[in-house]
């Protein structure tokens, strides 16, 4: 904690950040482990569909509801589809939903928050009111309402997940931007004749980037959980698409009759992914902002 903060910062730039990152990963085994998991998840998302042993959509009623075996590592579901292949293939969709929604809220919440913190006044009041109104809802319930109202599609799941995360991003960005409002480098930029918008985008925004990136990795896990929860209750993704939430929902009915593997493995994949993102988020925060470590 304090010993990291007290270490004099080496020459700035990407190389220094990388060195510092390697140091923290070396220091903290857990972060290294999470990083390894992250690589596996990314690999599964990118090349998963090409390497799985079975077609995730091919049903084979003769082999339905078989437990894990050498042929079907995670068993087969009620239609005889290979659960392992489906779990791996689903990584891409779940990962895509999480990344897309986090990127979207980063744009919306980040920009709105920076503007609110930097300009203050009416901008601040409007952004604050929007954030407060969203926060007045239980977030998952609001997401349900948004998807139901806008239409039952994957795009709307992404949008809803982004909207419910908006207050979090807007608040962090606002707080970070408002302390930099009158900072020396901002005043220097102002004196050399830069317009306010230019200062906002070229000076303030890059400065709060590290904190925002930490925020992104911390909310990735929540985004995945939120999206999977929505598809568990039948929103967004439709069968027979392979997606973790809907696979757990399909396997739920078989849990009471003992066919545990149908729901267990996609649920486990979901849990591992969220766990990985949470650990990674904590680790990244240690790199970027060592003082906030708990």
């Amino acid at each position, binding site marked *: 904690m304090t010993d990291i903060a007290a270490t004099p910062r080496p020459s700035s730039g990407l190389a220094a950040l990388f060195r510092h990152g390697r140091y923290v990963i070396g220091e903290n085994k857990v972060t290294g482990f999470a990083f390894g998991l992250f690589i596996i998840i990314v690999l599964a998302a990118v090349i998963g569909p090409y390497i799985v042993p079975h077609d995730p959509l091919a049903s084979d009623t003769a082999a339905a509801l078989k437990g894990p075996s050498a042929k079907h590592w995670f068993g087969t579901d009620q239609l005889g589809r290979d659960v392992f292949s489906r779990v791996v293939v689903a990584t891409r969709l779940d990962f895509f939903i999480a990344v897309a929604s986090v990127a979207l809220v980063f744009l919306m919440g980040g920009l709105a928050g920076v503007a609110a913190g930097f300009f203050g006044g009416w901008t601040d009041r409007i952004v604050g009111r929007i954030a407060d109104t969203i926060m*007045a809802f*239980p977030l*998952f*319930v609001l997401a349900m309402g948004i998807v*139901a109202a806008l239409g039952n599609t994957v795009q709307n799941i992404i949008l809803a997940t982004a909207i419910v995360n908006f207050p979090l991003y807007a608040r962090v960005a606002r707080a970070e931007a408002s302390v930099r409002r009158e900072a020396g480098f901002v005043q220097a930029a102002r004196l050399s004749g830069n317009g306010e918008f230019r200062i906002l985008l070229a000076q303030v925004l890059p400065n709060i980037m590290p904190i925002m990136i930490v925020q992104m990795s911390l909310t990735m896990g929540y985004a995945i959980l939120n999206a999977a929860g929505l598809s568990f*209750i039948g929103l967004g993704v439709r069968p027979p698409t392979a997606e973790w939430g809907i696979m*757990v929902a399909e396997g739920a009915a078989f849990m*009471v009759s003992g066919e545990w593997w149908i729901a*267990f493995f996609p649920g486990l994949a979901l849990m591992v992914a969220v*766990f990985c993102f949470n650990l990674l988020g904590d680790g990244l925060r240690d790199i970027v902002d060592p003082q906030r470590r708990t």
Partner: protein
Amino acid sequence: MLGMILKRVMFAVPSLIGVVIVTFLLTRALPGDPAAYFAGPAASQEAIEQIRVKLGLDKPLIVQFGNYVNDLAQGDLGNSLTTGQPVGKEIKSRLPASAELTLLGLIVSILIAVPLGIAAATHPGSLLDHTCRVVATAGVSLPVFFTGLILVYIFYYLLGWSPAPLGRLDVFMSPPPQVTGFYLIDSLIAGNLEVFWSSLKQLILPAATLAIFSLAPIARMTRASMLAVLASDFVRTARASGLSPYMVIVTYAFRNAMIPVVTTLGMVFSFLLGANVLVEKVFAWPGIGSFAVEALIASDFAPLQGFVLTMAIMYVALNLIIDILYGLIDPRVRLEA
């Protein structure tokens, strides 16, 4: 004191207005024609027009909003498309089931999380401390519907200790005469122990699922806040004055450490009310969450809108209660008002 409460209530009003506006806008955001949507897929052009006039959708938006607020003020949340029943009535009859489940889950969670957090903070670096951290991180990573299913598999299918995850009571039993709507309390009032046990058995697994889910943030916050308080000057003074460790921790540190924990309860409720929907689906619990999910599957919008509104109003009310509680615990907040 009264002034503080009034001030807090005033703070909740803008949130409430925001909630009503957003739920109104959600209905208007329906893709395509809301009248056609409410009329159902089989309706003729004439029937759609009729519905449009009946729902007031031919009037300007601001008039529609006025009508909406007027209906709300009279407790009218519209009718369900599938059952034709008023949504308000249905939600009212289902609310106790959800409330009983959520509150029991929260109570169990607090009973475990707070002592765990305190123990972790008073023994930093110990096995207990590490356990607390692992539980907290794992707890936030567990999808709540997954925990529920695992519990069902273990305790119903493998061990046979718990009844089938189907509702609030054994199918052969009739619910106790309604007083509070909470089966646990009503059965005791009626003196019917058999029903009490049956409903308790049905409640344990879903409540445990919710408890596991909300354990993490509470334990984490208790630990962090307790650590901060234990490092403060007044605790050092209390220790130096020779007070017993028990006295220092329970009387001095604990009460101060609880202040930030009460504030996080607001966030915990936000998660809990959302998780409630998923848990109700897993355990076929006849609460307002299942009501909303059934409506979703049938593309029936009025119940869903009513559900979102009810949940949001409850959440605003809970936050208000937490705010007032906060003032009661922390005299400094009272002085400010």
